[in-house]
């Protein structure tokens, strides 16, 4: 087999992105819980620097970064590779993790005065493990390596759900773990079938080798559906609402914003890079149907929720749906590859702006919970008076979810709508609009409460420091700022894509 990968000069950055958090975990174990927060925050900052360095290298070089581990070429060796989309994911991950880290640090300082509780140390270790696993997913090129990264991600995410150790959260975590395990085992089975057929698991090599055959069809079906279980797309969303609503606010934020994006990212790569064109079209149609149902059904469910965090969790399932309706819209054509379509940019932008907006929302909800000791929407009348910054953060994040200008969500939905109209998918256009209306409904329900006059003077259980609220506001503002991107295909997301052969194209 000819070598498809060659280490680029700055390829070591990819290794750094994966390894750095792991080293930090070891350092925490070595140095003890006292310095956990400090080490974690330093590492998250360094991770952000690495992420920005990767993005700058991508922009400067205009091609993907690669690293072949140990100089062993696939199929025996493992390659890491970051193109524009991966770069964007890595930067987004580093940003959200950094913000969540700041939030968590202030929140823990609030509770045990900066002391090092066991839950706190666990949180920092898990957060770092999450960072490593996410980066590994975004730069991985080997399907089995990706399986390991996904499992690491699950193992880091599951304990985050039950960090407070209450029976209901442990139950939610177990349910999450088992369903995710089922999903990843299906994925593993698919990996085995692909190896049996092609003798390699390297995505780049597969994109050149793959052809229509039953083994590949079965493998793709198993892998995609397995990943769907981890992404919690309707009707496989059973585990998400209790898990995301039960977790502590910073954990919910990373779970909703980042963790479920990793399987979505892999599905995108499977469908666009590995699947032959006909199969990609079929899978895309089916995923779009599921995505559309997810948007409508789970938005209604979000409207029905009485608790703020459950509402946000259902909204996550709904918003994930938008990422799946991208598939048929970004199908591309002979002279317009998928990554040059506006739907590709729209999808990526939806992914990123949802990550920012949803983490802001969960953090704001965390502040509300911290201040009031509950998150029943009906009893939150006038919370905007007490927590104006959090209410503003929630509102701004809501604007992005609803797709109201100027916000990243608006640009994303506008691009997807344009693609739906131009490609002739009126039912998808209608779904996008209806989803926006329903999102308006559930966001507005909370905003209306925030602006209302409190029935009785508001009793705040605990004064919440400004810092916590500012973090949420900053994330929400970032989601809004994305709205200043131009309404056309974004070049950064296309970097390194043309290196992949036109597997998804006729």
């Amino acid at each position, binding site marked *: 087999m000819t070598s498809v990968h060659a280490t680029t000069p700055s390829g070591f950055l990819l290794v750094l992105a994966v390894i750095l958090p792991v080293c930090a975990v070891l350092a925490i174990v070595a140095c003890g819980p006292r310095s956990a927060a400090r080490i974690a925050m330093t590492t998250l900052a360094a991770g952000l620097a690495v992420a920005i360095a990767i993005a700058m290298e991508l922009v400067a070089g205009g091609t993907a970064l690669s690293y072949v581990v140990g100089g062993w070429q696939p199929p025996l060796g493992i390659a890491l590779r970051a193109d524009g989309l991966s770069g964007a994911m890595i930067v987004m991950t580093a940003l959200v993790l950094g913000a969540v880290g700041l939030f968590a640090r202030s929140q823990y300082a609030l509770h045990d005065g900066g002391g090092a509780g066991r839950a706190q140390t666990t949180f920092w270790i898990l957060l770092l493990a999450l960072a490593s696993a996410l980066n590994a997913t975004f730069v991985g090129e080997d399907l089995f390596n990706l399986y390991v990264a996904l499992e690491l991600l699950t193992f880091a995410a599951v304990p985050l759900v039950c960090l407070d150790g209450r029976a209901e959260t442990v139950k939610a975590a177990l349910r999450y773990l088992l369903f995710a395990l089922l999903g990843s085992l*299906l994925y593993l089975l698919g990996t085995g079938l692909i190896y049996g057929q092609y003798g390699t698991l390297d995505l780049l090599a597969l994109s050149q080798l793959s052809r*229509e055959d039953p083994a590949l*069809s079965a493998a793709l079906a198993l892998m995609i559906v397995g990943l*769907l279980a981890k992404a919690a797309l309707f009707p496989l969303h059973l585990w998400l609402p209790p898990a995301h609503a039960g977790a502590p606010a910073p954990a919910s934020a990373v779970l909703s914003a980042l963790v479920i994006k990793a399987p979505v990212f892999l599905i995108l790569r499977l469908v666009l890079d590995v699947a032959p064109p006909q199969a990609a079209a079929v*899978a895309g149609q*089916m995923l779009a149907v599921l995505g559309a149902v997810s948007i409508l059904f789970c938005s209604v469910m979000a409207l029905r929720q009485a608790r703020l965090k459950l509402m946000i969790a259902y909204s996550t399932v709904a918003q994930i749906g938008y990422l799946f309706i991208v598939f048929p819209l970004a199908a591309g054509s002979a002279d317009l590859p998928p990554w040059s379509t506006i739907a590709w940019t729209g999808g990526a932008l939806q992914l990123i702006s949802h990550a920012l907006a949803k983490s802001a929302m969960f953090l704001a909800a965390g502040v509300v919970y911290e201040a009031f000791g509950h998150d029943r929407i009906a009893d939150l009348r006038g919370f905007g008076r007490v927590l104006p910054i959090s209410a503003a953060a929630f509102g701004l994040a809501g604007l992005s979810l609803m797709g109201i200008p*100027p916000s990243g969500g608006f640009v994303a939905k506008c691009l997807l709508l344009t693609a739906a109209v131009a490609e002739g998918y009126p039912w998808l256009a209608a779904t996008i609009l209806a989803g926006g*209306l329903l999102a308006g409904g559930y966001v507005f329900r909370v905003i209306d409460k925030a602006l209302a*006059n409190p029935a009785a003077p508001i009793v705040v259980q605990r004064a919440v420091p400004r810092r916590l609220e500012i973090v949420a506001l900053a994330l929400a503002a970032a989601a809004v700022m994305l709205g200043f991107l131009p309404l056309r295909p974004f070049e950064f997301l296309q970097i390194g894509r043309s290196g992949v052969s036109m597997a998804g194209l006729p």
Partner: protein
Amino acid sequence: MTASGLVLVAALLFPLALAAGCLSERLRARALGVLVLAPLPALAAALLVPDGRFALFPAPFRLTLVLDRPGAILLGGAALLWSAAGAYAASSMARDPARSRFAIWWLLTLAGCLGLFIVGDVVNFYLLFTLASLAAYGLIIHEQSAAAHRAGVIYVVLALLAEAFLLIALVMLAATYPDANPQIRSVVANLSGNPMRDGIVALFILGFALKMGLVPLHVWLPLAHPAAPTPASAVLSGVVVKAGVIGLIRFLPFEAGMPVWGGVLIGFGIITAYYGVIVGVTQRRAKTILAYSTVSQMGLLAVLLGVGLDAADPAATELTAYYAVHHTLVKGALFLGIGVLGATGGRRLGLVLLLTAVLALSLGGLPLTSGALAKLATKPMLGYGWIAGAMTMAGAGSTMLMVHFLLTVRNDTRDNPAASPPRGQLVPWLTVTAASLIIPWALYPIVSGEPVAGLLQPAALWKVAWPMLLGAAAMLILLRFPRRLGAIPEGDIVELAGAGEPLVRRASDRVGDVDAHLRRWPMAGFGLIALAILLGGALMLRA
């Protein structure tokens, strides 16, 4: 950038800058005081900037501002009303505990509304439309009563619906366009070549009709206007509804014409004009009567636009703007007048009532007032067919409604203790009243191209006077049926929507049941396997 460009930019950015300034505690405390200043750059732009001037912003803002004659006419009237209503609010709400919040919503709505009249590109039009729509919610719910929240919810639902219609229409309009943010003028000029043009126009009419309040999409007006504080009602009824008018002016192809859709607009307009009158005369509250009068007047504006679209007559947009500015000033003055009347008693009451009567009857076309001018200016365009007849009779209807309004306010103020209104409220009201009486005279020769002298001919006076007399006579007959009062609840058909509520609730519960079912472990497990088999089967069949 030229001086006129700078003024245009200031018209949009000055209110936004004031709103941003409210982030500081100090400025927020006196935010109410600056409301009167906020629209002044826009007023200056309307008065000083010559037609056709524009200002461009490069990426990433991609903003184009352009002033044409309909835009300038609407902008001037709206800015004047915003300024006067702001001054009124500074006096009437000075002791409101939530006044700074009110001021922020006010500034945002103002920036959106005024910006709409001058924005020239598609994306920023949508942005400002959204800003104006959503920020107005803060004005509607300001009083925090249950009625205000109900009105607010209904308003937001309809506003979001309008947004959705507009968004898809704009996307369909610009989808085939190479530039991501084209100029409104150029996309509309190319509309006739668009294969989806009928859908686009239908969605535009639907979206903007929601904002204007054309029947049956008018339900938010009679709920929101009475619920809001008086100065807010004045701008809601005077300016915010005009966002729909400017939208239709901008996005309908008046150059090319579309007879079918012109006919649709005419039809909806006439229905709305009469419907507003019929429901209005059954109302008890003065503000609600005015809100229904606004519904009726918006119907008349829709007819004017429809006629223009039918005849491919771009001049119709100017005449519509002229009619609209008359309505802006008169309706604004009437709403402020309700507040002034409430604070007046004794000797002065008669004088205030007299001025109110002049204003109110102006809507019906009282000779020599702006209403008569607006009707005379639009007469030639309407011709002598059934549409002209229907419009004349609608004028009679407006008179009926306004007589009803006058009787209602006289009744309401009968027992007022002797007092004179605060100067801070009286002066703005008088300013708008004076403006409504004077400005249309100044604009008449520009818009209609005829000298003012023609307006003083007895024939012209009679043309507008007889429908008024007819309307007044009809109202006198109607007064014999007092049981009509309260026969139709405020918001009329929204009550019918209430009947659908159990259905919606049941459907929603059904969704909840399905979700609970799907989220059971065995169900989800089988779902997972079934999906895998389904997808695998589909892939293999295709392979």
